[in-house]
């Protein structure tokens, strides 16, 4: 046990030593910001859960069936998430981390290295899922007026379920790594996980849950509810957790503790099995992964003539970005996800039951079209956050090249800007045109949407590149994750503020213009002044949104020590 604690110490010390950083005031702001968002999100889940569970429970006849079914689904989702998250984290921690060579050169048995790494991996992959599942379960306790034992029980049950998920994941990983090297499994798992998620999401979306508000469809709902009474599969650990929570919720304490003890015994079996298997297989798998990759791919040199028109330095960086992007398999799954996001987004507009709304269709169509500018901009922000924001961090340790070549940072950042601006601009315009066609909006609204997107895209992309340059992380193994850092949060907040401001400035003038068009009346001089003033303001705001973030990024990046 002493060896395991020693192996865990570097992690603990790195965490503790963060406090020794010179820039403590900046760290305080970051902590406060993350803390605020964390509590805000936790509180949001708690309030929504409380309302939903309370509402379900009140439904006469099948309130309890619904709430318990929901609980069983939540626990199953929680368990699946834990399994997936544990698989990815344990793969990285146990097989791909850079410090594994050092650890394995030490006089410590490999199973102890395994235990230390597994503990780290379980904590890393479970803490967030556990933290954000608790408000839902606490809501159950409040709605059902459960006693103190219930709250103690949910904490234990959730922790035990996390250990079971970690055990199943790590055993699976240890077996699979012996057949396929870990570095390739990771991509495969991400891809499979993504496919699984998308299939579920598409299936749910194409069921059109909005029809549930339609009374004509209600007979089908009743039929569906009857099927809810079917018991959950007994062999799933999430079912044992469900049985324990359900029992304590309804006051059957002993029964609840019995199911909890059953889960605990299985968790113990998982822990011991994982350690025994690790003693036999962990080092073998690790050696297999460490075997040098030789000549996986050969790429014959080709001169892409379609970029010939560009200046040499632009062409160099564009080619580098394109080649790097398309040869990195982790990006492919992201592209796949974005394609799904776009399809769902467009489909939602196609499925809107506008004709059943109490407001006149023409107003609703054009109101939605106006709001759609903001929605499309938020899709744009999401994609920018994933691709443009990490663009500078993607240089990783090779950033010295950018600093040493005869090209200034301003030029470099603008090249990055255009690399991402062009595809994002085309994508967002396609999105807005497609949804406007589905909404059958007026020519005026179509033109307004196109112009607005034309103005918004450069600002959002500039913020992505600018904030990404101001807060880069060249040491990150996965720069795409840098968006969850302080700079990424700042980027998203400023972007959302910018898009929101544009929408608010334009809302009044657009309404006047639209109504005068519908009513066939002329606008007054004051209305014209207001409209022109607003659009001029949006125009200048968009110019500022392009220039200021780029300058900010350049200034901070030039001062950065590498």
């Amino acid at each position, binding site marked *: 046990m002493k060896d395991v604690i020693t192996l865990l110490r570097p992690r603990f010390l790195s965490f503790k030593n963060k406090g020794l950083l010179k820039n403590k005031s900046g760290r305080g702001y970051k902590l406060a910001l993350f803390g605020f968002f964390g509590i805000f999100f936790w509180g949001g889940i708690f309030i929504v859960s409380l309302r939903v569970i309370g509402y379900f429970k009140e439904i006469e006849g099948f309130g309890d069936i619904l709430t318990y079914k929901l609980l069983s689904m939540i626990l199953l989702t929680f368990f699946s998430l834990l399994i997936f998250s544990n698989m990815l984290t344990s793969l990285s921690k146990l097989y791909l981390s850079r410090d594994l060579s050092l650890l394995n050169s030490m006089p410590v048995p490999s199973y102890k290295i395994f235990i230390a790494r597994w503990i780290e991996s379980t904590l890393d992959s479970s803490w967030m899922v556990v933290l954000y599942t608790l408000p839902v379960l606490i809501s159950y306790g409040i709605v059902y007026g459960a006693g103190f034992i219930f709250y103690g029980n949910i904490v234990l049950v959730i922790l035990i379920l996390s250990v079971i998920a970690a055990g199943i994941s790590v055993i699976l990983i240890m077996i699979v790594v012996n057949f396929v090297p870990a570095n390739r499994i990771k991509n495969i798992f991400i891809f499979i996980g993504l496919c699984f998620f998308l299939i579920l999401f598409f299936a749910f979306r194409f069921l059109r849950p909005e029809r549930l508000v339609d009374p004509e469809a209600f007979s089908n709902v009743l039929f569906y509810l009857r099927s809810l009474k079917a018991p959950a599969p007994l062999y799933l650990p999430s079912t044992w957790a469900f049985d324990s929570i359900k029992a304590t919720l309804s006051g059957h304490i002993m029964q609840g503790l019995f199911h909890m003890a059953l889960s605990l015994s299985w968790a113990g079996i998982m822990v011991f099995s994982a350690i025994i298997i690790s003693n036999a297989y962990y080092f073998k798998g690790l050696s297999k992964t460490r075997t040098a990759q030789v000549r996986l791919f050969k790429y014959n040199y080709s001169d892409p003539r379609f970029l010939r028109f560009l200046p040499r330095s632009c062409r*160099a960086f564009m080619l580098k970005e394109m080649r790097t992007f398309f040869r990195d398999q982790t990006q492919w799954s992201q592209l796949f996800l974005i394609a799904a996001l776009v399809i769902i987004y467009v489909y939602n507009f196609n499925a809107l039951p506008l004709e059943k709304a109490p407001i006149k269709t023409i107003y609703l169509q054009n109101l939605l079209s106006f709001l759609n500018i903001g929605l499309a901009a938020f899709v744009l922000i999401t994609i920018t956050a994933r691709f443009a924001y990490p663009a500078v961090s993607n240089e990783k*340790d090779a950033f010295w090249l950018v600093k040493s070549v005869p090209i200034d940072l301003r030029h470099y950042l603008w090249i990055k800007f255009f690399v991402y601006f062009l595809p994002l601009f085309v994508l967002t315009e396609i999105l807005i045109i497609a949804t406007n066609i589905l909404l059958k909006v007026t020519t005026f609204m179509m033109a307004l949407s196109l112009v607005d997107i034309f103005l918004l895209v450069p600002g959002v992309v500039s913020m992505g590149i600018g904030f990404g340059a101001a807060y880069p992380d060249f040491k990150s193994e996965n720069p795409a994750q840098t968006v969850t850092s302080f700079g990424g949060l700042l980027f998203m907040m400023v972007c959302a503020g910018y898009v929101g401001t544009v929408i608010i400035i334009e809302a009044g003038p657009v309404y006047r213009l639209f109504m005068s068009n519908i009513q066939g009346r002329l606008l007054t001089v004051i209305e014209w002044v207001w409209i022109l003033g607003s659009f001029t303001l949006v125009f200048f705001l968009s110019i500022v949104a392009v220039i200021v973030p780029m300058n900010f990024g350049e200034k901070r990046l030039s001062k950065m020590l590498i």
Partner: protein
Amino acid sequence: MIELIELTKKYNDFPAVNGLNLVVEKGEIFGFIGPNGAGKTTTINMMGGVLAPTSGAVMICGINIQDHPKKAKSKIGYIPDRPYLYEKLTGIEFLEFMGDLYGVDENTFLNRSQGNLRLFSLSEWANDLIESYSHGMKQRLVMAAALLHDPEVVIIDEPMVGLDPLAINMVKSLFQHLAKEGVTIFMSTHTLKVAEDICDRIGIIHKGSLVAMGSPEDLKRDIQNKDADLEEIFIKLTKE
């Protein structure tokens, strides 16, 4: 060719490089040695334009790198101690990338890239992704790229790390050949034998300041021991 004037770099209050003054002439090979943490890499990073000095100036071919970074950098071939590269490019694509940034024209690029790949024994690997290269191969690729634009000044940090004896021999001959052609070479190294073999002058840096400078003979004179080798000189001058 290279002039460092009162060059200073402070990390917070700690002076990593403290008022460094030196001149390296055209066609000279200058060796820069010193203990770990003496300020060698910081000096080299400032000379390569990778790091901004706190005060003082770096002049490359008479151009201040702070005032005209683009012009000064186009005259430099910079080789860092750790060859971090774009792993998803192939060797030849990386050379093309560097050629484009330094404005090497197409015909020259075709000739020089093939020539440099041959020189550094990388022709066979030119179409493989850099991620499959060993440390030594990456180091050789960086060298091949740094020489692509025919630089007037080569700044190189630990040139021999990761290279096999054959490659070390080749690099030593190459530097001597380049110096004869008029290229100024500034290299930091811990391999004192290499410094002794090929450098015209050697500078010893300790705690951010230059403690001795001159030809190996000058340094022996300084410590009043004409039989001393560079290792003894180094130990004597940097002993606490």
